[in-house]
């Protein structure tokens, strides 16, 4: 399994993107389900709908706990991180920098990164839970 390989040690964006892309290729179905499903539902439903999507998608498609956590985390982290980045960069941080200050952070860019991490944690845990619950029924 691809997940058994260690991820590239460089923190450069290119490596991360390559890594993510390779994951998407391999785990395309699970990733797309979580990423696109959450994306669409986020326009109508409360923020936590993404956890439900990750849970159900992993319940249905995930092959292992590690995979569920990784793909769920990357999908939701990426979804929130990219969307927040869009607002942050397109508006030149006009509001994100102020909110970052309010939360004790130096700028909106860091807020975006931390938000992506938190979203990833939420998505990863939700997907892991989905896989684990399913595995209870398996044996």
């Amino acid at each position, binding site marked *: 399994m691809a997940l058994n390989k260690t991820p590239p040690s460089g923190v450069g964006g290119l490596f991360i993107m390559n890594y993510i892309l390779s994951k998407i290729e391999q785990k395309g179905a699970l990733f797309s389900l979580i990423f696109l499903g959450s994306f669409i539902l*986020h*326009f109508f439903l*409360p*923020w*936590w709908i993404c*956890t439900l999507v990750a*849970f159900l998608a992993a319940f249905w498609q995930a092959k292992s*706990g590690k995979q569920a956590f990784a793909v769920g985390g990357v999908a939701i982290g990426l979804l*929130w991180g990219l*969307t*927040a980045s*869009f*607002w*942050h960069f*397109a*508006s030149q941080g*006009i*509001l*994100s*920098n*102020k*909110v*970052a*200050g*309010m939360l*004790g952070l130096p700028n909106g860019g860091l807020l975006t990164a931390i*938000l992506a991490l*938190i979203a990833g*944690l*939420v998505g990863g*845990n*939700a997907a*892991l*839970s989905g896989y*684990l*619950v399913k*595995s*209870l029924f398996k044996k």
Partner: protein
Amino acid sequence: MKIIKTILSLTITGLIIYFLQNGAGAVPALGKFLNPFTGFWTNSEIGSKEKDGSALVRNINIPGCTDEVTIKYDENGVPHIFANNNHDLYFAQGWVTAKDRLWQMEFQTHFAAGRISEIVGVKGLESDQYQRRMGAVYGAENSLAGMLETPENTVTLAAYSEGVNAYINQLSESTLPFEYKLLGYKPEPWTPIKSALFLKNMSFVLASGSDELLMTNIARKYGKEAAEELFPNYPNLESPIIPVDTPLDFKPIPLPKYDDSFLGTGSKDVPAEQDKALGSNNWAVAGSLSFTGLPILSNDPHLTLSLPSIWYQCQLTAPGVNVYGSTMPGTPNVIIGFNEKVAWGVTNVGGDVLDWYEVRFKDATKEEYFHDNQWKKVTKRIEAIKIKGLPDKIDTVLYTHHGPVVYLENQKPFKNNVPVGHALKWVAHEKSQELSAFYKLNRAQNYDQYVEALSYYSAPAQNFIFASNQNDIALWVNGKFPLKARQQGKYILDGTSKSADWQGYIPAAHNPHVKNPARGYVSSANQSSVDPKYPYYINWEFAHTERGRRINDRLAKMTLANVDSFRNMQNDNYNLRANDILPSLLLKIGTPSPKLAAAIAILTKWNLQNNPNEIAPTIFDEWFKNLGFAIWKDELDIDKNHPMRYPQADQLVEFVKNKPISKWYDDISTKDKIETLQENLVSSLSATIDSLTAKKGLMGPAWAWADWKSTSVKHLLGANNPALDKFSRLNIQMGGGGGGIVNATTARTGPSWRMIVQLDKNHPKAYGIFPGGQSGNPGSNLYDNMIDKWAKGELNELLYLQNGNEASSRIKKVIKFSK
């Protein structure tokens, strides 16, 4: 094992979700707030790209208008509304105001109505109780009843509310204004009572000050004679608003008789207080003194500055009206502005329109009180205050015929100048017609129509300045003033005596006024309305005289006045107080010690301008303040439970200049020593140097005036909350100073709107700016875009369109409401 793992994973997931959904402790519910799809992010405004300079036109279908409405936004985000009838005009005004300022207008009216606890929980309760107990809602209800007596106000208020509600109904989760997302609540429908609450709140801001309790405490401690020596009834140096010897054009009615021997009980038990240095100015010159041969008018009302900005600019055009100016979010019409023919502006009148009456209750049940030799029934008003997360607080407020007994014994007042067990008589509680006044002013074509409009105005009293293209200039000290004996209400009044009651009001036509004075100019700067010969009593004390004197000095020398000379005057940093007192201070301090010599040298060289980089104004301002402490503190600030006050600044000037010996110079806390004036001067300057050195380091550029004064414009929620500093503008580099300088800017107050109008036979030219921006959204470029220009003392040319067809390259966006 699997089960444990599963449970663990579910629990962790659940906990994270719960925390993000509900928050914990001081951390708000972050999930919803940070959600990049509907959370705060979506309030970030992304600059729209203009194509070849032509404005973006958007048609929207909003139910409620009877005809087509066009709204053109200029580059500063000022809406220019073109409607075909009054209903649609005020509908559109409500809509555009809500679009830019919904949260602010609702928050401020919630504050006015004593409903902050609904939003912020129990920490808002004391403020809410104060608002309710002072009769804010009671006054607004009376006021609304008055407004709804005329059909035009009924239409205006209803249409404005419909417009606000049309905008509220358009909102989605993602377009909800930022602060609602931050605080986690939603707007409720707008109603006309909210507009009334907003107008009434202006009386709280401008006309709720009262010194009766403090004055009574002083008289109790030192006797009335001493109190009168320290607190005279007319300034030593003054240039009153209505020029001395202006002939009366009415036959005055006699003043009522009042027995002033009553000395109230004063304080029973109370805590600490705050200081204000507001300083509004307005002036106008006749054509004889202007470059154009027609009048020019200037106005800069000063308030506690905040973001979103206090004012909202708007042009309102419909058949019978084409007016431009500053509006107050929450109320229809333009408040300060101009039309094709006239311009007007306001400064506050420090009239005594609020009195405290000591009440004698029959017994502990407080069902009856004694008045006019009989026991009278107390009426009760129930105030139910909703508190977020807690059950409602039910407050019963007792009312005598005077008004509410604001606090009873054993209740702690929210402000230390409110006496417990006293009834409040306040003009702001009465039925009133302010809305008619502004409606008519917006449409006024000449002096007579301006005077007619003013007759509808009651509170808070304002110095309404006026200029017309018929070459008239005028100023009315206008509002509803109680008919009182001289100095009645300087001290607490006897609530049992009929003769202490207000005996009606000064007739509107007898309010102080002047039209086309021989000197060729009119002005006001909150100083004494009239000289003591005026046949009515307005108040015993007004704001510092320096600004008014300085403005009149400059106007008296002015010829060929133009917009730029007026702008220069708005930014006048001359310290007239220093001019009045500094030579005496430097003379009477004697030979300075080495410690003081450097400071003395700087003060001696100073050109008396409070410019941003000077350090002399910092030293002078602190010295003057510390000198006040040195002389007055030992006698007038001795017991937190019996608050007193200091004499006004001009009394300190008078003492230093003309009273070499006085018992007040002695520090009564030193037992075997009698201090002299000189010792007070030395100790206060020494204390000044010590405290400045302690805070800013050794004397040098770090003591610069702008940094010391540190003018800030703070978000409404950020006044005492440094976490919101990024939503505020801190330490703005600018000159000026307290209430004694024309360019009056302090740490938190300053010119909230500056306007200059050059009247014209065809089309007026006008300039204006306020410290902030048109948008209330902190995610917009128009949130604070005007602050830097404002700080430099510059103005924007105001775009005043003749009609809906006039093209302008400054129009960037057009919205059309279809029928």
